[in-house]
């Protein structure tokens, strides 16, 4: 974590596809970083050693995605901001992750369910990037999708195991599902930034992933004997920079060291 993660940038022509290009990439990057931070909180606290290792491994992969995406966003922006500038030196309202990933971990089941919902969405987004006009972003997608599929597989198995487990694990999973599901609609809300990403050929077919995600997740939730909550009109606003009360605490922990010791080196 010492040199820019994406030195391949130097060989690629970086011409933004419209004014919202970097903003869209930052949304993806922030989603990966914030979920990585949440999963890292499980380090040393997993219910069993294997799942402690699983969460921290997934967190590391998400951090790897975030680094590549931040470096790419910085290059697109052209103002000299590197991955650290994005991660440590922006304030809450500048983060554009969907609210879903910043919510507190809750119990193990809730953490599994949230991460599974998000990585299932990621797998589809990486897929749309295969046809992106931004070849550097397509490369990040092609790299990430292989790892994300492992995450989806592993977490999905736990959703089924816990949902279709004991009376208590089922009850907890249904409670987590009822709590988390209203936040997922933000992932598919096509605001100006998302629409621009589609229209400029940055992420073509973004409007088609909601249907696929819903079909995929419903199938797994059905296997897990869980009841999919009815849609609600609620729309979370993390991507607009208006976060839940949990976000400030998350950032203060994540950014404390970098801000207390600016320019600190190992």
């Amino acid at each position: 974590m010492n040199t820019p993660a994406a030195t391949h940038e130097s060989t690629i022509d970086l011409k933004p596809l419209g004014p919202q290009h970097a903003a869209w990439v930052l949304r993806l990057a922030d989603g990966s970083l914030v979920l990585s931070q949440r999963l890292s909180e499980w380090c040393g606290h997993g219910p069993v050693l294997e799942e402690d290792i699983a969460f921290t491994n997934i967190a590391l992969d998400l951090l790897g995605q975030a680094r590549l995406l931040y470096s790419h966003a910085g290059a697109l922006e052209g103002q000299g901001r590197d991955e650290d500038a994005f991660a440590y030196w922006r304030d809450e309202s500048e983060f554009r992750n969907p609210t879903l990933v910043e919510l507190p971990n809750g119990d193990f089941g809730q953490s599994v369910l949230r991460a599974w919902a998000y990585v299932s969405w990621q797998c589809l987004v990486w897929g749309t990037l295969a046809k992106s006009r931004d070849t550097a972003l397509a490369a990040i997608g092609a790299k990430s999708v292989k790892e994300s599929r492992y995450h989806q597989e592993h977490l999905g198995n736990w959703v089924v195991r816990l949902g279709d487990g004991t009376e208590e694990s089922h009850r907890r999973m249904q409670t987590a599902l009822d709590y988390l599901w209203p936040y997922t609609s933000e992932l598919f809300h096509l605001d100006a930034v998302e629409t621009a990403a589609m229209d400029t050929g940055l992420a073509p077919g973004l409007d088609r992933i909601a249907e696929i995600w819903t079909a995929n997740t419903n199938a797994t939730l059905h296997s897990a004997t869980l009841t999919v909550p009815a849609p609600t009109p609620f729309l979370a606003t993390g991507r607009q920079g208006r976060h839940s009360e949990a976000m400030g605490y998350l950032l203060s922990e994540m950014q404390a060291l970098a801000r207390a010791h600016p320019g600190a080196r190992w």
Partner: protein
Amino acid sequence: MSTGAPLPQDFFAAFGAIEQVPAPWDGSEEGLWTLLQAIPDPEIPAVSLVDLGIVREAHSEPATRSAAVVITPTYAGCPATEAIRQEIVRVLKAAGVADLRVELRIAPAWTTDWITAAGREALQRFGITPPCTIAGNLPRALQFRPACPRCGSHRTEQISAFGATPCKALHRCQHCREPFDYFKPL
């Protein structure tokens, strides 16, 4: 995230790799590959960076004694990537490369299918079962039961889908009862 600081000098010593003084570079591309072939992976020192498929290209300019090396990360977040880059710089500079450029390239994405036959043998000897070669077909790859690297039995079970490094999962042989690492197909 980044601090810009190099890793401590004893990083490789601490992880079991032996820091050797390389033979002087003859200026050829072949000579470059020979030097790279001798560099061990920092996390799996039994296998060379070349045999893991991490070194993608090596070019030389004998007249100016300059060289360019292209490497690719295994996993996007693998912390060994920076250590690998620094070790390549250290070895090639020590061998007499005057001007060196190490480029990190992520496309095409690294796959375990790039691990060479020699690399697979080295993994096996080290006690890590090499990945099945159907990484492109994840559902089938996940069904695959790796053989025990000690007794060769296919009666094995997965203990943990994730392991000590991003690239490994933990399994157990039901025949000889020994646990072992499996290099995940990716």
